[in-house]
């Protein structure tokens, strides 16, 4: 019996739908043409221009500064939250906690952006790097908590008891046994938080102030004032970085399952 070609065709169409635009963008980043998208030969001219642009470097610095600090803070908070949710998940307080943690995953970003902006304005916090940092932490904590929680679900707590039994204090057993055993989940959560922070646009758009322009915001303004192909080059680089991080986080989440 001959196999039907239908699944192959559907797969090809879906792949094309998802990845063709990205492919065109990547290809165009190597195209020296300024306005048309006709191929005029391979060139790295836009990459060179990119590296010479001070605005880009400033935006990149902001983005990385925020991403690194957001990752550090949300890993600590998210892991602690996941532990509390797992250990005391039956109590009413923790069920409320779970709902709260879950919210940022389902609430539309634009809503979060507006509400955060209103909160900062009401509290009189001047918009800037600090408000962007706070805003990113609010949703990154949730992603870290959910990733670590998944890891905890099939975690054998008797190893923590074993550590206590062998003479470790509560703190020692957390440091030497619990955290190392959860490490793949924690690292996966950290990579997720890092990538989410790097490429967040909507929320950042609302809470950023003067001098705190991040890379996604910079790209948006570059598109608005003419579309220099530099963006293609920048997007390609961003794509490479986030793709690597996501693949790494998935690998780690799967490790030793």
């Amino acid at each position, binding site marked *: 019996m001959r196999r039907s070609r239908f699944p192959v065709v559907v797969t090809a169409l879906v792949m094309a739908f998802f990845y063709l635009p990205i492919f065109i963008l990547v290809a165009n980043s190597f195209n020296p043409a300024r306005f048309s998208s006709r191929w005029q030969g391979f060139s790295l001219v836009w990459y060179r221009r990119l590296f010479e642009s001070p605005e880009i470097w400033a935006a990149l610095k902001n983005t990385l500064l925020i991403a690194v600090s957001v990752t550090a803070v949300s890993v600590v908070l998210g892991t602690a939250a996941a532990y509390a949710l797992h250990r005391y998940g039956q109590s009413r307080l923790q069920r409320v906690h779970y709902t709260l943690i879950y919210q940022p995953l389902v609430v539309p970003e634009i809503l979060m952006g507006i509400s955060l902006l209103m909160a900062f304005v009401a509290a009189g916090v001047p918009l800037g790097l600090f408000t962007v940092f706070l805003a990113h932490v609010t949703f990154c904590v949730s992603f870290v908590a959910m990733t670590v929680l998944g890891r905890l679900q099939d975690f054998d707590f008797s*190893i923590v008891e074993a550590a206590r039994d062998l003479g*470790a204090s509560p703190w020692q057993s957390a440091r030497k046994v619990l955290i190392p055993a959860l490490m793949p989940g924690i690292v996966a959560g950290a990579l997720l938080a890092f990538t989410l922070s790097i490429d967040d646009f909507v929320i950042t758009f609302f809470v950023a102030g003067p001098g705190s322009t991040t890379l996604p915001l910079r790209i948006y303004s570059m598109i608005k004032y003419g579309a220099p192909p530099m963006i293609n080059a920048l997007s390609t680089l961003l794509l490479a970085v986030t793709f690597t991080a996501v693949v790494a986080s998935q690998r780690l989440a799967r490790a030793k399952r």
Partner: protein
Amino acid sequence: MSTDFLEFRGVSKRFGAVQAVDGVSLGIKKGEFYSLLGPSGCGKTTMLRLAAGFETPDAGRVFLDGRDITELPPDKRKVNTIFQSYALFPHMTVRANIGFGPAIAKRPKKEIRDEVDRMLELIRMTGEAAKKPDQLSGGQRQRVAVARALINKPDVLLLDEPLAALDLKLRQKMLIELDLIHDQIGITFLYVTHDQAEAMSLSDRIAVMDGGRIEQVGTPAEIYEAPRTSFVAAFIGDTNFLEGRVEACPDREYCRLAIAGMPPVLCFNDKSLQPGQPISLSIRPEKVHISHERPEEKPQRNILPAVVEDVIYLGSTTKFWVRADGYRIQVLRQHARYFLDEKPLRWKEDCWIWWHADDGFMLDRFRRSDEGLLAVPPQRVGD
């Protein structure tokens, strides 16, 4: 009571609606191999966790070597646990797992290395020191768990169903190994199991638990030969229950029992019962004899005619289910030369069963539901 090394004094523990342990007092002597035996949910694991310090009792105290350790956290107690899941640290090598206790205690590095080497030799795993737990077999993991606990030289070693995860042959091997280790190092073992064969073969003494209470404490032989309650009789080994009333006491030692539908049964009267008192008997299947021929009458011999209803050939023994005066009675016989000099009893054949008056054992307490613990062959249609 001052000789007890590990002692529970009236401990109780409740989890939500479940009374896991209900006012239990136990004393374990130094160097003893002591087992807590019972079905799942009987409270035996909670007892172990109370000794380890993972739980604190709602009432009662726990003493170790005369010291009240009730409030002491697990890391401050000189007891170590072997968990059912072994609970090896998955991110550490075998060497780091075994050396965990001494490393936490900040002993010198060289000393730890030598100690671990000695332990590895004891469990015959010197070649596996650099492996991670997930590269080991079940039996090897178990041995690492033993070494990891013993390296701390605990006063008491707590074992929580340590053999439950192993297959039968390996279980038998580890059983012998545990016994050897106990003999070699001579520390006190508190062993929790639901497997009566494990408890019987290893223990100096056994405490049988049910529903959070102690049913009976004794040596394996005492528990088996002289069960005090129907639960103990039915949970450990197999047995036959007969219920009746004392009819007469012809002398100080024996009494005659009236059992509905049966000729009078003679029984050793170790409870000094008076005529008219109700009593339940437990008779072990291997104490009952069976034959085609009517046996010779003897003063202390109870003889009943019966019909064979089921025959289960078990290799070294054969199990018979016979019906005598409406009672189903289980008989276990060992073979001498099965093909040569035994004429096998077959299904539906008439036979005689008999037992000595000393072999029917009077129970302090009988509970109808305990009959459910006995293995009974399916009733035939029309039975």
